[in-house]
């Protein structure tokens, strides 16, 4: 594999370019040469299809994936959870602040140690800690963390990831501004004003921070994510609320705050469950696309998330203030919201690996350009898509599931 004619003391390069004879200036010369590890267990010859596509396997190229799998590791679903919880907590804190805006909103703990303020304070703390953790997780997931700031080079509404970086930056700045004045030794009224205004800003920024991640993954070619773009942002919003409520149940603020959390939790968890169903329904419109929700690791995660969330909701509904059941509800809800994110990421992976998910979705007139064409068919008519129209008659019926 390596140039045999090179003497052994010279640095070997997998490009077979002798750096003393040829300059490494090509476009790909930035790529470091992989350490050529022995090949991973190659598929056995009887596992490899002998023909590019066989009738019973569906039309694909040797069953190879058509799309590239999402490269994100566990940091990203963890970020989806942390960011969602932080955003929803900030929003709840701002709402509580708004309700008692006149007269009462003081810096947490010191001036007015009222119960609402404990709720507001916890919300602010969760938001600030979440903003910090989000940034760490996001940076950790980049292959080259040193370049995180490049995300703020542009402002691009077609890239939810770019918009999200802006949301997160604004949210983080607001959270910091709402918490920092409390760490200041001498307290002045202006600090309180700054802190309250900033917490308000954090609440406003928390709403998109909590929900944009749904747009982020819906704006990909991954069939199950792209196909559920109506449900995903709403599901993430509800799940963020359920997650934040669960955390507050684990760490109850007491007094009226507990009531607020209880209501918030009941509503958030109910919505989370209901929207999970909507999400699964939207995916099921093309059976092949919803397959990852039923099979394999992603299916197991998805069912676990559903069970945990349902149990969390039941526990919340049955629990009384301060009872251990309420903490259990918080724990179940937290695990449920966390598992949900992992299930959705895993389902996306499985869905991208399956070439038939993409082609069947597009043949069914969804998740492709045909959907747009159909929408404005009333206007200037595009000619029928050759690739799509041709296969309609034979492909329109949902394909039988293959074992």
């Amino acid at each position, binding site marked *: 594999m390596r140039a045999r004619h090179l003497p052994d003391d010279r640095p070997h390069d997998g490009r077979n370019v002798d750096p003393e004879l040829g300059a490494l200036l090509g476009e790909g010369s930035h790529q470091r040469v992989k350490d050529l590890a022995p090949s991973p267990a190659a598929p056995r010859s009887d596992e490899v299809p002998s023909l590019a596509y066989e009738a019973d396997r569906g039309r694909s*190229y040797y069953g190879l994936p058509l799309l590239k799998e999402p490269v994100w590791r566990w940091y990203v679903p963890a970020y989806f959870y942390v960011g969602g919880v932080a955003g929803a907590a900030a929003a709840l804190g701002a709402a509580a602040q708004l309700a008692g805006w006149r007269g009462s909103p003081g810096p947490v703990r010191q001036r007015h140690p009222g119960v609402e303020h404990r709720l507001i304070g916890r919300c602010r703390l969760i938001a600030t800690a979440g903003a910090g953790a989000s940034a760490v997780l996001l940076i950790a997931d980049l292959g080259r963390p040193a370049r995180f700031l490049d995300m703020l080079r542009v402002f691009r509404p077609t890239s939810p990831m770019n918009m999200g970086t802006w949301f997160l930056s604004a949210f983080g700045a607001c959270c910091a501004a709402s918490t920092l004045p409390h760490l200041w030794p001498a307290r002045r009224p202006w600090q309180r004003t700054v802190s309250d205004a900033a917490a308000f800003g954090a609440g406003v920024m928390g709403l*998109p921070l909590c929900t944009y991640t749904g747009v982020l993954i819906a704006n990909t070619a991954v069939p199950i994510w792209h196909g559920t773009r109506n449900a995903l942002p709403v599901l993430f919003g*509800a799940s963020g609320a359920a997650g934040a409520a669960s955390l507050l149940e684990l760490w109850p603020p007491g007094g009226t705050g507990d009531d607020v959390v209880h209501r918030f939790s009941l509503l958030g968890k109910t919505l989370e469950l209901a929207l999970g169903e909507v999400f699964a329904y939207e995916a099921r419109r093309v059976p092949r696309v919803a397959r990852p929700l039923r099979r394999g690791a992603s299916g197991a995660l998805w069912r676990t998330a559903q069970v945990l969330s349902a149990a969390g909701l039941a526990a919340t509904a049955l629990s009384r203030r301060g009872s251990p059941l309420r903490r259990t509800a918080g724990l179940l809800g937290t695990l449920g919201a966390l598992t949900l994110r992992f299930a959705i990421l895993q389902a996306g992976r499985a869905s991208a690996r399956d070439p038939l998910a993409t082609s069947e979705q597009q043949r069914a007139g969804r998740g492709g350009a045909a959907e747009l064409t159909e929408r404005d068919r009333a206007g200037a008519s595009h000619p029928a898509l050759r690739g799509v129209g041709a296969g309609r008659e034979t492909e329109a019926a949902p394909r039988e599931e293959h074992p």
Partner: protein
Amino acid sequence: MGFFTDTTLCIGCKACEVACKQWNQLPDDGFLFTGMSYDNTGQLGASTWRHVAFVERTTRLPGQGTPRDGTEAGTMAFAPLRPAGQPGTTSLLADFVAPSHIESPVPLGPTQRALSNFSWLMMSDVCKHCERAGCLEACPTGSIVRTEFGSVYVQPDVCNGCGYCVSACPFGVIARREDDGRAWKCTLCYDRLKDGMVPACAKACPTASIQFGELGELRARGAKRVEQLLARGVAEARLYGESALAQPGTEGLHAFFLLCDEPEAYNLPPDPVVPTKHITRAWYAMAASVVGLAALCLGAVAGARRT
């Protein structure tokens, strides 16, 4: 500028793969064998910017044959299809080779019967340099730009390795390399174009299957070639992604293909769309969600205060 890849002319020699690797000094992929057909590359990737697909089928492709069967006549058949700015193909068959019909001296029996119902399609796949590119629109750093040649170019010094483009490409082209965490793909040989040369793959293609030139000219050639094939009985011949009308999802490809089967056979999506084309719906859903979440928070607070 762009590519027109006429898959009916591809002989699966992989000269394009090698030329691309060599010119761009891409490292190897580890020399793995997939075990299927002659395709040991599998798919496009961060260090594979051209990939030759070998589609083996138990179908007969009408009109398929060798010059000996009288269906092609040496380089004459390709003469009008020479890559722009190149003297000609480097086929060993000279123009004067006349089509002839040679039958095997002895009947081949079952082999012949089996082979009569068998065909190979080959296609040299590459980044499509979409007119509206999913990777470009998704990139949060502005690392992916459109060059003066209309191609889509990733600036390696700006890319921060977020991997968003990887999931945003409807063709599964661009990939992130684990070792440096950046996204890489075909550059349409930007450095060669700058110097007035054709891309390495097109230069190396011995059969003019990969043709490089002005898009308008290439489209005309493609249309002509399809006509030629249809007249010869290859009813499946079709262009893939040649214009915005043919592929509204990407508004046309700067690297389009002549195919002899449905796109899925070649691992191409039948109806690709830039995910961003559907993004407004998702933003609306998010706006609804933002309002809903705000109402949820306010409702929880207001409801509790009355108790």
